[in-house]
């Protein structure tokens, strides 16, 4: 007897093959997999959101109303604000949604303002204040690179006022320092982009490896059938266009 687990595993393997088939060419099986994924993901998100609402608000309010109203009554306020969001669909009452949006923005800004200056600005600046002379030459070199690339990156993004070189005049020291830091900034960012690109490849290849190990290898037959179906769909598609 073939259980739902087996059917699910086959479907997983087939869907993976169909999604990856887009790398070669668009085909009907890719479209089936794409639509199924979008539909399932949307349905899943809605179900999870409703479940969260049920667990936090509805179920406690129904199961033990006395405890809920004495301890968690304030949950009703965001629930009302959430309902107000749906007034966007009414031509007459759409303005009510603004209150919900305003509260959302205010809470987000308030929370961020509380800690952003320390977490995202002060701590990042203090992390670049490092000793530039020391007994460990490797650490000293690293510290120099960190400080120079930070200054270079910041210099590169100065768009308002910067030293300019006058025609036929020897460049000033300020200009030379500016240009030096400017180029250090450019090359520092190039190195950063290179690291980002390498990490991107690692992630994408990692996805491919895990997909193969988790879904395709254990269900080799289902994957092979899915691949044959995809190949047939692609060939048919090419023949129809001709």
């Amino acid at each position: 007897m073939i259980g739902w687990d087996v059917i699910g595993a086959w479907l997983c393997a087939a869907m993976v093959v169909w999604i990856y088939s887009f790398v070669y060419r668009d085909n009907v099986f890719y479209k089936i997999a794409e639509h199924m994924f979008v539909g399932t993901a949307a349905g899943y998100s809605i179900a999870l959101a409703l479940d969260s609402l049920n667990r936090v608000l509805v179920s406690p309010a129904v199961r033990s109303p006395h405890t809920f109203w004495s301890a968690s009554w304030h949950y009703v306020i965001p629930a009302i604000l959430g309902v107000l969001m749906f007034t966007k669909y009414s031509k007459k009452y759409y303005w009510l949604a603004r209150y919900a949006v305003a509260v959302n923005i205010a809470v987000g800004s308030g929370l961020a303002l509380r800690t952003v200056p320390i977490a995202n600005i002060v701590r990042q600046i203090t992390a670049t204040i490092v000793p530039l002379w020391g007994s460990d030459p490797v650490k000293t070199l690293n510290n120099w690179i960190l400080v120079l690339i930070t200054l270079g990156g910041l210099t590169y993004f100065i768009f308002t006022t910067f030293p300019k070189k006058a025609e036929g005049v020897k460049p000033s020291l300020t200009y030379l320092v500016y240009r030096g830091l400017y180029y250090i900034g450019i090359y520092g960012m190039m190195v950063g982009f290179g690291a980002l690109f390498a990490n991107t490849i690692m992630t994408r290849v990692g996805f491919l490896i895990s997909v193969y190990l988790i879904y395709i290898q254990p269900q080799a037959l289902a994957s092979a059938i899915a691949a044959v179906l995809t190949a047939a769909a692609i060939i048919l598609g090419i023949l129809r266009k001709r």
Partner: protein
Amino acid sequence: MSGVSYIEKILGSRELLYTLLLLSVILPIIHPLGIPIEVSKRTRDVYSYIETNLRQECHVYIEVYYEVAARGELEPNLIALTKHLFDKNCKIVYGSLSAFGVIAFSLFRSMASDLFEDKVYGRDYVYLGYIAGGEAAAASLARSIKGTISVDNFGNRLEDLPLMKEVDKATDFNLVVIASSGTDVFAYYVRQWHTPYNVPLLFAALSVIAPSIEPFVGAKQAVGMLVGQRSAAEYEVLVGRLGLGIASMDAQSTSHMLIVAFIGIGNILYWGKRLSSRRGGGK
């Protein structure tokens, strides 16, 4: 057509690159090459931190914030870290600020069922489930978990779970692990858990987002970071439970070698074409 242009046309087809990439991934999995890997300082530092700073029966909060697509990179890290923490008899509270964290946790739980065999739900570990609200929810959880939600993912009242009688707020935890495929959630925890309460954070990130969150690690706002499958493989070696991370390493190495070779060939062809066009122009 010149020789350089002919080679460029053949090697420039994406079908060839994708086919070679697929082969470079599949063949080392079918026939493992056994390319040795060395445990990096970054991974060893994370291991040493847990070994030296976490006592027996400590409390750890783990944020499961990744979708199924990112399983391959983050799940092996999560499994290896859970194994290490359970070996130290730590008690773990899992939670998800992402709706997809629920399915990610369920898959992780089934992949690492051996780790949970002798652990009792509610006493040794708890899964809070999806907590809606993003950064506001993270801030609220840091103040009080029981004040934010009253039931766990399975509908159990938090007040009835023995582990939740021991912990409630950020400062009750000795370590917070964030396994995430998105950049924002790391910032949430830095801003709402580390900055106000000074709770140690540990990051487990996708390779692609690691450079974005590196400044937090550099500024000592996190005790360390595990990056993608490479760190997972190293951590699996350290904790002695080999899994998906180590199985992927040969394929990662061969596919990277292929990409490096293609970048090299691309550059040679580019310069070859420029040189040949200059010679042609000179004539």
